[in-house]
């Protein structure tokens, strides 16, 4: 019997927040570096527009993470706070959460884990409105067709 085991990071459970809440993200990575240095790490919400990842950049929080010289893989854990402010473009809906080092390929993200409560925005209810409007147009046409028979 061939037993294959793969380790997959545990998915984050979605959580609900309100406009104005501050979210504290705890993240970690392992690193090596040949001299003492530091990196800027930022975290915040994102969503997709036409399939393209769109950061709600105004909501992002960032910190500077010190990286002492490490010749072997060394774990670094840190926290980043960001606030869900309506004036920064966040509104009720579902968002992903991304933690990244700007200007590098180093990032981690998960879709649909930030649920922002509140009245739905026009973009959230637009598909439902369009469906209702189409039903409203189709039903009278079907009724008129039935009367001719």
């Amino acid at each position, binding site marked *: 019997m061939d037993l294959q085991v793969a380790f997959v990071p545990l998915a984050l459970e979605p959580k609900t927040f309100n406009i104005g809440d501050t*979210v504290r993200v*705890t993240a*970690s990575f392992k*690193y*090596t570096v040949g001299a003492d240095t530091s990196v800027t790490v930022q975290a915040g919400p994102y969503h997709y527009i036409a399939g393209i990842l769109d950061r709600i950049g105004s909501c992002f929080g960032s910190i500077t993470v010190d990286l002492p010289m490490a010749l072997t893989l060394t774990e670094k854990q840190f926290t980043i*706070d960001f606030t869900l402010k309506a004036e920064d473009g966040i509104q009720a809906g579902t968002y992903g959460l991304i*933690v990244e080092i700007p200007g*590098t390929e180093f990032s981690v993200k998960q879709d649909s884990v930030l649920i922002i409560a509140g009245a739905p925005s026009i973009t959230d209810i637009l598909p439902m409105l369009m469906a209702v409007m189409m039903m409203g147009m189709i039903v009278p046409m079907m009724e008129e067709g039935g009367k001719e028979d």
Partner: protein
Amino acid sequence: MTLTPLISSFKLSLGGADPVVGQQLAFSGWYRDPVTGQQYYYDAVQNQWYVYAAGYLYALGYMNPAPKQVTLAPGDKLKITLSFKYTGPAVTGVSSRYCIGAYGATGFDEKIYLTPTFNIPANLTATPVTVTNETTLTLPASPGADWDDIYVKIWGGTPSIGGSELSPNYIFGYENALVIVGITPVITEFKILDFVKV
């Protein structure tokens, strides 16, 4: 009576590594690759293959898998020790070249090197004795991540052990002997552990 230097089992040590011994044939002579037609020469005394090209003999397969890896950061010093078995007269002023660089399809791209000379004491017995020599190389402030190979070659001296800087009889190297940790962080296993309202 003429005393001829005899060197064998040329190898490098990165702080006590085990020697690497290649395949050894019984007789010296020319060999021909039946597919390519390329001619090779095997020196059974030195246990060394050579390839013939443009009038020169080049030591073949002088790069070997490293028995271990040494991690280095900018400014770190690497001590390379070579050793070989020797029978013959005392030799003074043997030239050597110790290199760190990137070995690939186009050869060895030397990045750091030193060319010290050293002496070999006489051994007039029939039993070869081990001769060692060492040199320390220092990494610069911004080493390349691909500077992970090393080699050493020796030639010349009085009386000469043979060879020259461009066609040494004795050359040996290790591939992937070094792990260069540069000044740019390398990050892995990036993950979000939790997120909460505060």
